[in-house]
């Protein structure tokens, strides 16, 4: 894959030139300073922006246009890393040569309509569109408890990081305060105050596409992101329980990582987490599920951004105390890891890195976000993972602070 980097209209454009895929993808990234409480409005905005615009003022009209262009699609994602919020808007379509039609031009034109001409009049989003998507986000927020893993994890974060942007998630209270003109103001803010980057991948005329998309945009410069660091707190390890109308329970054991170097954040802790609970060869799976039959699933989740490791297990509520005891033993046991475990974890992680270039979205995502952590290229990363020693991994045990358990308990 050839990588071409250029500035077009003073905005960095990265083009991955390849004809191995049958479709092309474009991703436009907007990065802006994060503000607590903005998660909900950004979520609503990112949804409405890929669903309607002035030219296609209902989702039906937009979808008809997508279908005219051979099932192309638009989507958006939001992520918070450190002190920045990032929204990316994406388009994807089949390559022209497979259907003998000007699909890419058409799809990029519509993409520009979505970005530049939202469904707005009189300085606010049109009521019908606003109400529809407001309602959709409200519905999803109302149903949050139906996704127990997501809900439980959020509740754990709220307990671990009270009054922090880390535990600030989109929520109903914030949603109910948003009006159609608030949303438009947010749109204008993002368009005028974001640092921009464009990524294109596939076999296309990248200059033509980039010039169309970036024609009327201005990028703002920001400093490097400031990533979260955890401070040692004099705090007791607490257990919280919440009852849901389910038969099974889900348990979340949260820990914080303290005094972590950038090298540990990027290369050592992922290996630690892999050995601990990174798949069917991990200690959690082997001991808690296979040997003790306590859980159908038990794994660890490493959040690189906020430096936490969470053990998550689907259990029978009656086994809570037993599972908790075993989890703590498993974590304690990480002071003795084997060479075999180290090699296996490295092999697993390195394989995932090699797979990145098999998927368009992964290529784009990896390349954009790697700058936040200054991880380097895939080959540099592989070298760094290979350098990690057993002692490096064992040292993490002393840097882990048990913080909170959150149990979503099923009713009997």
């Amino acid at each position, binding site marked *: 894959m050839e990588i071409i980097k250029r500035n077009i209209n003073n905005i960095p454009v990265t083009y991955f030139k*390849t004809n*191995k*895929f*049958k*479709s092309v993808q474009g991703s436009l990234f907007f990065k802006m300073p994060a503000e607590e409480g903005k998660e909900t409005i950004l979520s609503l905005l990112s949804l409405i922006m890929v669903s309607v615009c002035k030219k296609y003022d*209902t*989702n*039906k009209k937009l*979808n*008809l246009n*997508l*279908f*005219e262009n*051979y*099932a192309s699609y638009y989507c958006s994602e939001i992520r918070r890393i450190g002190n920045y919020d990032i929204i990316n808007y994406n388009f994807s379509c*089949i390559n022209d040569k*497979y*259907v003998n039609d000007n699909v890419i031009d058409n799809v990029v034109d519509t993409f520009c309509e979505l970005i530049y001409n939202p469904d707005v009049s009189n300085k606010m989003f049109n009521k019908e569109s606003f109400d*529809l998507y407001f*309602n*959709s986000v*409200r*519905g999803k927020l*109302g*149903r949050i*408890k*139906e996704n*127990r893993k997501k809900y439980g994890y959020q509740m754990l974060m709220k307990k671990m990081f009270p009054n922090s942007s880390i535990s600030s998630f989109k929520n109903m209270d914030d949603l109910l305060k948003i009006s159609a003109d608030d949303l438009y103001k947010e749109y204008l803010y993002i368009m005028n105050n974001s640092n921009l980057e464009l990524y294109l991948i596939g076999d296309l005329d990248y200059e033509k596409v980039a010039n169309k998309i970036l024609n009327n945009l201005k990028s703002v410069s920001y400093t490097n992101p400031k990533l979260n660091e955890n401070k040692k707190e004099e705090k007791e390890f607490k257990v919280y329980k919440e009852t*849901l*109308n*389910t*038969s*099974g329970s889900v348990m979340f054991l949260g820990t914080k990582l303290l005094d972590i170097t950038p090298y540990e954040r990027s290369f050592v802790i992922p290996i630690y987490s892999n050995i601990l609970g990174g*798949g*069917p*060869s991990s200690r959690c*799976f*082997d001991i808690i*599920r*296979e040997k003790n*039959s*306590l*859980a*159908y*699933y038990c794994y660890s989740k490493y959040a690189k951004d906020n430096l936490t490791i969470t053990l998550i297990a*689907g*259990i*029978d509520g009656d086994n809570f105390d037993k599972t908790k005891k075993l989890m703590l033993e498993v974590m304690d046991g990480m002071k003795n890891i084997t060479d*075999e475990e180290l*090699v*296996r974890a490295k*092999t*697993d992680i*390195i*394989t995932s890195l*090699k*797979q990145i270039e*098999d*998927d368009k979205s992964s290529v784009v995502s990896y390349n954009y976000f790697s700058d936040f952590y200054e991880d380097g290229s895939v080959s540099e990363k592989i070298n760094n993972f290979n350098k990690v020693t057993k002692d490096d991994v064992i040292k993490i045990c002393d840097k882990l602070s048990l913080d909170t358990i959150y149990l979503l308990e*099923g009713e009997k």
Partner: protein
Amino acid sequence: MEEIKIKNLDETVYKEVLDNGLTILLYKKPGFQNKYAFFETKYGSVNNSFIPNGNKEIHQYPLGIAHFLEHKLFESKDDDSVFKKLQNYGAYVNAATSYENTYYYFETTDNFDDCLKILLDFVQSPFFTDENVEKEKGIIGQEIDMINDDPNRFLYRMSINNVLKNIPYKYDIGGTKESIDKITKEDLYDCYNTFYNPSNMFVMVAGDIDIDNTIKVIKENQSMKDFKKQCKIVQEEFTEPNGVDVKKETYTHNVKNKIVGLCYKLNYPKMDDEDLYKLKVYLNIYFDILFGSTSGFYDELIKNKVIKSKFDYDSLHFKNANNTFVELFYADANSVTKFKSAIESKLSNKDDISYMFNLWKKNLIANYVRRFEYPDSASYFIRKNYAKYGKVIDNEYDLLESLNYDDFIKVIESIHDYDMVEVILKPKQ
């Protein structure tokens, strides 16, 4: 080795059948790092009543046994688990059981031949003991709880259970806690020895592979094992009569708002595979035109306050059960009557939809081309078709091109006689 050219695309699938009956399918996709291998048997959750090898009468086995067996095949006699052996090479391994099939697979960027041998060996080395069977009951019991606790999966499961009367598709793939409690190691060996014969199985490999070398690895591996081709497996046959089992049922669940599921059942006569393929496609296009993203149906439901915010639909087809088709609609409906009325009003609409038919047809063809964009997506469809029709479909592009509006209308006009069930999930107060 047979070379099957996929028409209208520059793609080839290679096929070879070994002496022991095992079919090998290979799809080479240059330029990709990841390689995939699947080892699949035509045995799933519906195959519970059959004559086991060495017997003369039909035996009935507990529900969920195919899925249970899938879990147990990861057990090994030696200390090293299958997971560890494959992960040592950086491979990701998993398995899945469906109504009619079970497959075991891995994906890896390196050491492909070594991983392939491990896959073939572990699936062909069952090791069931009373102890390891008992241990698994606790784990699968929790998996069953996890599935039941998911409102979407629970609604789906109860809809299928209530709409079907007689066929084993009625029951959940994993069984129930009560049914799996009855499973013994002897039962597992009966099922294994009957359905895991190579003549009932196939291997699919996809990625930037060396075709000749891969065939060689599989052949050498199989030549060291003593499997002989077996006769056709005799199974109990079921017919699905018209009508439904339970017309209406309400359950309390972990939901914020009431969820209504409406499940429509259509029966079709037996037909050849090509006609069946087209029927399926026509029905899918029809429901997509009426209810999908280009229909505006969701917006109407919201505007008319029929639902709060959630609506979706799904299509199922049970080929081996009188060609029963099931269409499931679900929503957080404010009123069951209004939701039902909205669905049925659409179904009885006689507007000209030729434009939409041609639009959806165009997209099906584009999506068919995109299937071959990645080795895993291509192998998914090659496997699915092979499992269903017993062959690699090389003319799917032509079949899609041949779809026409007149035939489509005839299919729509046949949808006048259907049965329906209601399943409601309500929050616990």
